[in-house]
């Protein structure tokens, strides 16, 4: 990785979200929440979803956790993404994000689906850091699953 690549991993948007975190702090009123641990480092995140009772869509995502710049920025970017998405749609987008992350850099992210979270695409080339970026998304996916019917979480 050259200095240029370090910038590709830690894009300015990521550094910004790592500092100014959107959605941080759990709410007393959330609908469901899921806690996930990254086995590689022991870091963790708890993601909480609130459902809009009117539309049945996801109203907001809040989170709390401990992790690196990648994982906190990832949670923050995800919080920006969810607003008023139907649960199904959010699940699809998480699936796309996972595909990108697992692609080792061969799959371009779709900005229509991921919005600013495309900034995380550089992570895909760092196998050891993919779990960092995935962590909040896995927690979100698990929370979505609970919304449908409570079940066991899938591994990160």
């Amino acid at each position: 990785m050259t200095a240029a690549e370090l910038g590709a991993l830690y894009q300015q948007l990521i550094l910004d979200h790592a500092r100014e975190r959107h959605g941080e702090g759990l709410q007393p009123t959330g609908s469901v929440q899921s806690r996930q641990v990254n086995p590689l480092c022991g870091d963790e995140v708890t993601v909480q979803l609130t459902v809009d009772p009117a539309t049945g869509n996801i109203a907001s995502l809040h989170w709390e956790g401990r992790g690196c710049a990648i994982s906190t920025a990832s949670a923050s970017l995800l919080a920006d993404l969810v607003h008023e998405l139907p649960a199904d749609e959010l699940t699809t987008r998480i699936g796309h994000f996972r595909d990108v992350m697992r692609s080792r850099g061969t799959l371009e992210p779709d900005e229509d689906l991921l919005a600013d979270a495309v900034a995380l695409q550089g992570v895909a080339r760092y196998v050891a850091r993919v779990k960092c970026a995935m962590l909040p998304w896995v927690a979100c996916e698990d929370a979505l699953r609970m919304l449908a019917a409570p079940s066991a979480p899938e591994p990160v």
Partner: protein
Amino acid sequence: MTSVTPTVQPEVHPVGAHRAEVDRIRDDFPGLHQQVAGHPLVYLDSAATALKPRQVLDAERRFAELRTAAVHRGAHTLAATATEEFEGARATVAAFIGAAPDEVVWTSNATEAINLVAYGFSNASTGDRLDGTDAFRLGPGDEIVVTELEHHANLIPWQELARRTGAALRHLPVTEDGELRMDLAPDVIGSRTRILAFSHISNVLGSVAPVAELVRQARAVGAVTVLDACQSVPHRPVDVHALGVDFAVFSGHKMLGPTGIGVLYGRRELLRELPPFLTGGSMISTVTMERAEYLPPPHRFEAGTQKVSQAIALAAAVDYLREVGMDRIGQWQGMLGQRLAAGLVGIRGVRLLGPAPGTERAGLASFEVDGVHAHDVGQFLDDRGIAVRVGHHCAQPLHRRLGLTASTRASTYLYTTAEEVDLVLESVADVRPFFLGTPR
């Protein structure tokens, strides 16, 4: 790099004088001469595992090519030669730590060596084994003592031994700065203490345990001492008889040797009494379908085909280290450790873990960068070709005590230059500006 100029001056530690020798040494390590991220590799992760010199790789390959033969099992010439070289390697490694050859048992790493002792105790304590193993019988009311700064390898085997036997596990705490609470030792080490297991040098803090004092207290209550010498044997002269410990363990891969080999030292009288751990071929004298009689140490503890080429290579590593001189290596690394520590405390927003500069420390230093996760620090340094270790370094309880979940560790070896230390210091000073936008 005003903020990171080491307080330890070149005048005090003659960098220049060593430099020519270190350069000669570096020529022997092919792994040093590679590029990472477009930069020459700066390998500061030797406390995790060391690079290997040509001489060790050559010895291993020569043996694997030509001497392939099961040792202690064949009558043919190849097997006889292999057996002699294998036992010669044992004698070399034994001499290196001041032990007799029959006090040295090959294991696959230090972790297995500690497990061997722990299972020896539980094998003496479960089932119907009766003879000669009173020294190792544990049960409720007995206590095993470790310290709060142990590597998981020197903690979990004792937790499991306690679980299996009903003994209690206690520990000597550390302060929030990581110092052993020796003032509490007389409370923790008492008449119920049967085992006292502790690290010679902390792999996180680089601090050195007061071995003599701990051995004295253990002896006073008749407890067996187990020394985790993973971070000492590779880096300074160690004489196990002089230290007076009962058992000691270390790993080959941290001392220029290959992976897959470790060493258990056991005081002869104790090793003779310790029940076997792994069982199978080559560690028995007579076997019926009902029972087996076991060989004396060290072979009693070496079941199945051994790590033969690894033992040969480890002996070559020991030869290499002796040739350079463990005294010199110890001094050189002490100096690098001081340079690291002094440099780190001079960097804004960096917290040095372990002994303050000027206090004895090994050739390593761990630190926290305020507001930046250790994995991000590691990634940043990696981008400059600098390999350090990040995480809990297999010492979660210590990190918890220090109020951390992870830290960054830079660790040196005989091939590390002062310039490399300065380079990591320089780069650490750039971490917060990059991630947080703070001034240097």
